[in-house]
């Protein structure tokens, strides 16, 4: 009898908990692109795919909006529209949403906003309300790791091909340069290492960019290029394909599957990843569970959480990086992460000027 009563009480508690949870209005998620499309192979696409996957799994309504022009007014108009259509969780990827947040957070105090890649500086001094969560990634850390690994693995002539010179890409690039520099200094070959540095000024590849890449690989002798900008990796990979042992470093996600699959096995040395997709899924799950209050009002800088790369938001893939035991293996990578987490390794995230380094950096500016 007692057991039965206990069970009954437990069941009632469970029911009441779920009842409270479902008393909240039904969650409907909308994403607003910053100005690009959801197929830009960059953070818009990552956010879209992660959110769509999560919503499909959990049976939640999901849609996206694309602003008509690249203005704050239009981004806010899309937010208005999303709210008007009844969406109560708005995902906003991109630093461009910074100014918009100040305008909408008070007006829509019961709508939850998740702003990714939006940092303190982007907000322009506005104070965050409890219904907004901002996350910014320390891309310079994974750029650093990629550069460090590349030089350790023996590459001495590297290249950086950014998409457009936006803050996230600049952080990747400057981090990369710092990583290259540190590894070169550690190995004592700083005078032999060169980095070619350029922005393609677009997020897709075409004949012009491939021409530049061909020059790097064939005429200048670049061995590996960090292609950091959406679809621009296609040009780098094309050019790499033409030379023997041409290599590429991927960005945002583990791109080895895509690049190797299309252009040739073993082309991707590593990728500088940031956990954008993971963040989206985590946040959406937390909102569903009703824990948004723990995140609201915060501007989190997501980088290293611990010594275990699995927990971190930035890193290089543990399974597909072309580690070489004895030269730079998985344990060396773990050691690097630990050193960075402990603060022994400092990576600057300033984006106003190229970091001062000892290796040679040829800044070629914008290709187009």
């Amino acid at each position: 009898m007692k057991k039965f009563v206990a069970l009954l009480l437990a069941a009632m508690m469970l029911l009441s908990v779920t009842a409270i949870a479902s008393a909240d209005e039904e969650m409907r998620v909308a994403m607003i692109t910053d100005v690009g499309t959801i197929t830009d192979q960059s953070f818009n696409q990552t956010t879209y795919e992660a959110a769509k996957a999560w919503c499909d799994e959990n049976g939640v309504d999901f849609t996206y909006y694309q602003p008509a022009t690249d203005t704050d007014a239009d981004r806010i108009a899309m937010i208005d529209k999303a709210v008007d259509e009844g969406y109560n969780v708005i995902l906003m990827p991109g630093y461009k949403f910074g100014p918009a947040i100040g305008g909408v957070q008070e007006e829509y105090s019961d709508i939850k906003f998740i702003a990714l890649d939006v940092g303190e500086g982007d907000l322009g001094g506005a104070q965050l309300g409890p219904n907004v969560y901002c996350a910014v990634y320390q891309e310079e850390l994974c750029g650093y790791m990629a550069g460090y690994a590349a030089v350790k693995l023996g590459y001495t002539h590297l290249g950086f091909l950014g998409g457009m010179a936006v803050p996230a890409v600049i952080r990747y690039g400057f981090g990369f340069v710092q990583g290259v520099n540190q590894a070169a200094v550690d190995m004592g070959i700083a005078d032999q290492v060169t980095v070619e540095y350029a922005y393609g000024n677009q997020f897709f590849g075409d004949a012009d960019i491939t021409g530049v890449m061909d020059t790097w690989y064939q005429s200048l002798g670049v061995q590996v290029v960090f292609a950091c900008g959406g679809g621009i990796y296609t040009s780098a990979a094309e050019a790499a394909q033409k030379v023997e042992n041409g290599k590429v470093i991927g960005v945002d996600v583990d791109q080895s599957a895509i690049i190797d699959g299309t252009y040739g096995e073993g082309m991707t040395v590593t990728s500088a990843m940031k956990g954008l997709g993971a963040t989206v899924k985590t946040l959406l799950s937390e909102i569903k569970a009703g824990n948004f209050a723990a995140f609201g009002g915060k501007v989190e800088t997501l980088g290293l959480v611990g010594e275990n790369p699995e927990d971190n938001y930035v890193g290089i893939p543990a399974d597909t990086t072309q580690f070489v035991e004895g030269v730079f293996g998985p344990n060396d990578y773990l050691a690097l992460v630990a050193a960075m987490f402990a603060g022994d390794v400092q990576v600057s995230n300033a984006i106003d000027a190229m970091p001062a380094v000892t290796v040679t950096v040829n800044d070629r500016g914008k290709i187009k």
Partner: protein
Amino acid sequence: MILLIQYTVVFTSVLMLVALGGCFSEHSGVINIGLEGIMVFGALGGALVMRYLPDGTMGVVVVMACVLAAMLAGAIYSLLLAVAAINFKADQTLVGTAMNLLGTAAATVLVKAVNTAADPNNPSATIAYGSKRGAFQIVSGMEFSWLAVLAVILLVLSYFLLYKTKFGLRLMSCGEHPQASASVGINVYKMRYAGVLMSGMLGGLGGLVYITAGVSEWKFENGVAGFGFLALAVMIFGGWKPFRIALAALLFGVFRSLSNVYHGLSGIEISIAIAICVALLALFAYKCYKDKKVNIPLMVVAVASVALPFLVVALEVTFPPELYNMLPYIISLIVLVIFSKNSAAPKAEGIPYDQGTR
């Protein structure tokens, strides 16, 4: 150096094909500003065929199928201009502008629809060619494409068609004085249709060459990045004559590829490039001089302005990168200034043909 040549060939063939297309259309009397749109659609036709051909088809078959598809798609799209300008006497510049805007939008919508139908999780406007791009390369690993050979063949064919056949001469007469042609019994409408359709075919092929150069997939929301307008400049630069258009395209191609590969070239190679460009321009100028239509001092200025950027690069004076981007346009403008005074444009172009007028 070999890179310079490769990319020069690539850009030259694109510009030459599209400019030849525009040339045919204008010779028949219809101004064709919509070359961008035609390029996009031709590229779309070729890309779709490439995507749907099974892997492992013979190289020849791939090339022929894609070329035919690109030409067909371009011709169909140019019908928009033909019908509007010839049957409905619309303003040709406006129709051309509308076709440019429409081309990118329509191509993007089409590709997205196709992609979503194949895989609902793929809303992108990208078409990936897969391994079939290799069919175009003569030497694997270099950007020499069979399409460039085709472009040269078409150039020679165009010259013969325009100047050595009855059809060509009649076509040109329709653009110079359609009423006189009509009085001799030439069906001006049919001739103009032929001119516009040929511009569609050549423009479409040019689009295909552009998107297969250097990449294995193409995002159609980007259109063709302004190449159509550059081809218009080439056409005018070339004075509506096929071989001069080829020279002009060569010049532009050298510039464009130089702006991409110059930092891999040594001083000697750049000097060679200068010499070639100056020689080309001198050849061009000589042809114009033979027609006694040019001003010698201005020509010297033109040659000097062309040689100057190369000298700058050779002497390793650094300029902001945007200057290199601007160079093709500045040079075209200077050349236009010099050579437009006695323009050889077809006299009746842009004027809708009306049988009733005299």
